[in-house]
């Protein structure tokens, strides 16, 4: 892979759009492979991809750049990627990058965006915080459980379930006890938390299952809770 072919591929991005032969970008993939064991090459490539992302590219070209940053991106690319979170046509790919990035800056960017978004964009970011298993997001997700938008509340419950910590469970339980209407998402979230806690904190998991095993719950929930309580008791044996 030569520097010229990489430059040509990055230049090709300016004209790239739906239907363009993907072969024109092959040099970028080669550069990603070469960057695997060479930090300076990776850093340079990331910088050039950030610059491309901030330029006036087509939607498909920006999608391509995001896919590459998902592989080699670090905290350095977070501001550029996060700036796409409020753009409906790019938000999905931006979250694709951030929810997979281990850098704490990525999770922070998702948390920061939460307060500025509504509707589907907000639901998407909530889902990404869950997928990221961002334990620091519990405090910002807990209020979303009481959102007037049922879809937002449901997404928050599932995200807290995916995070699966005792704090996440506590947030769900606090809301569940005072909630009206559809409690299923919160119960799903709680069951997911209990399952995450089962190995490390069986007593905490058992308390959750116990709270869901009463006659006031549906048969399916009681079945799941009963199965969980047995798993806890077995783990504690």
């Amino acid at each position, binding site marked *: 892979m030569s520097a010229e072919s990489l430059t040509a591929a990055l230049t090709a991005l300016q004209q790239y759009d739906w239907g363009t032969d993907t072969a024109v970008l092959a040099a970028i993939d080669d550069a990603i492979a070469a960057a695997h064991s060479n930090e300076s090459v990776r850093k340079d490539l990331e910088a050039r991809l950030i610059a491309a992302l901030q330029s006036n590219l087509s939607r498909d070209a920006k999608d391509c750049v995001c896919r590459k940053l998902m592989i080699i991106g670090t905290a350095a690319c977070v501001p550029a990627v996060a700036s796409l979170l409020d753009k409906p046509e790019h938000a999905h790919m931006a979250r694709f990058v951030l929810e997979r990035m281990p850098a704490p800056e990525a999770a922070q960017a998702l948390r920061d965006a939460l307060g500025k978004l509504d509707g589907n964009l907000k639901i998407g970011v909530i889902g990404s915080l869950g997928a990221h298993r961002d334990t620091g997001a519990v405090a910002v997700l807990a209020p979303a459980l009481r959102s007037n938008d049922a879809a937002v509340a449901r997404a928050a419950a599932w995200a807290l379930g995916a995070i699966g910590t005792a704090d996440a469970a506590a947030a769900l339980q606090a809301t569940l006890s005072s909630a009206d209407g559809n409690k299923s998402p919160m119960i799903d979230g709680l069951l997911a938390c209990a399952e995450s806690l089962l190995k490390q904190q069986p007593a905490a998991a058992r308390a959750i299952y116990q709270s869901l095993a009463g006659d006031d719950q549906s*048969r399916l929930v*009681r*079945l799941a809770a*009963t*199965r969980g*309580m*047995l798993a806890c*008791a*077995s783990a*504690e*044996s």
Partner: protein
Amino acid sequence: MNRCSGIACLVVGLVLSSATAAWSAKKPSADYLQMIVKLLSDNDPEFRGIALEQVRTAGGGAATTELFASQLTVLSPAAQVGLLGALADRGDAAARGSVLALYQSSQDEAVRAAAIRALGQLGESPELLPLLVRVLGSASTAEQVAARQSLIVLRGDTVTASIARQMPSAAPAQKAGLIEVLAARWARDQIPAFIAATLDESAQVRAAAMAALGQLGGVPQVAAMLPGVLKAAKGAERDAAEKNVAIVCSRIANDDERATTLIQALETIDTAQRDQLLGLVGRVGGKKLIKFVAGIATSSDPAQRKLGIDALSKWPDASVADQLLEIAKMTKDPEERSRAFQGFVKISATRDKRSDDQRLQRMKQAMKEANSPAEQKLVLMRCRTAYTVDTLRFVLPYLEDPQFAPTVCETIVELAHHREIRDPNKAEFDQALNKVIAISKDPVVVERARRYQRGETWERSG
């Protein structure tokens, strides 16, 4: 054993022994066990199912098993059946006493059958084998089936020999069951006992023995099975006996060797009785045997000819079709003509290795040779085994003739049943099926025709 495989065996052995030790030594908490016990008596079968999962896998060894097994007496019959199955899967002999006690005290057939089935999985004990043999002769079919399953899966080095020892004193129904069990346990060393049983006075025992030999027998048993064929009552028992010998012969891959084995076996039979085995020769088939049987089918003795024609009519493929047609054409005896022609049509329609087109050509030939409406009807009926659209085109004109219409309607729906010929020729089939719907008086045929037009299938009953 090389060094690597030795180490691998050691590692596997250590893993297995440690897993077993964990299963038996890990003592579950009382709380956990109480939860399971409570759930076992839940009214909801799904909640009981959760507990049964734990019964199968919970640690604690014999003490835990005994705790679970002690619940058998306090549960409802449905829950008892579930727990018996779970205890069987747990496979711990510590449950045997409670399971046996429940079998003896329960009046519920499902519970008793489940207990018998569980006992088979819990291992051999001195009183178990006689009990299972006794249940084989029980009035309850469910218990009989369970006992047979248990005897098949019962573990232990001496179990097969012990089962075999029960045979001489067993009643016919039990003896037949024991033979089936021994065959399922692949007890090749009992083949001499099976051969002896082919001559038993009980048809049930004879049938079981022939089936066992069909399953386990080889070349050395072919001659020994022939007296069993002769002993079998004509009809279903004789047919089944012949089929079992044919199955054993089919294990000989070479045509010539197969024929030689059978001819040598036939030579051990008294000449006067040998003719009765021609049907068997037909079932085994093969070029060398065609000549042998065709000679008999054209002999000067009418009784011999009849046996020969019947034998050719049982041939497993169409290689004897020309011989049968020749006999049908040459004979002056109308009954013999009818017998040979029926055999020719049956053999020509056999679904052997020929193509569907070849089968259809034979049916067209048969139609030309048919000399009565009854023979034509037979051809139109047998045409349904040639799965090609050309068969539809061949039979369709006969739909206009009222004497053939019902048979042709059935043949058309049988052909339409095969999606692989119906779908690529949908328009042609739809048109034919419309005629069937208009003509047929048989509601099943009409219903089938409608279903096939809608692209649906039809399930044969029975």
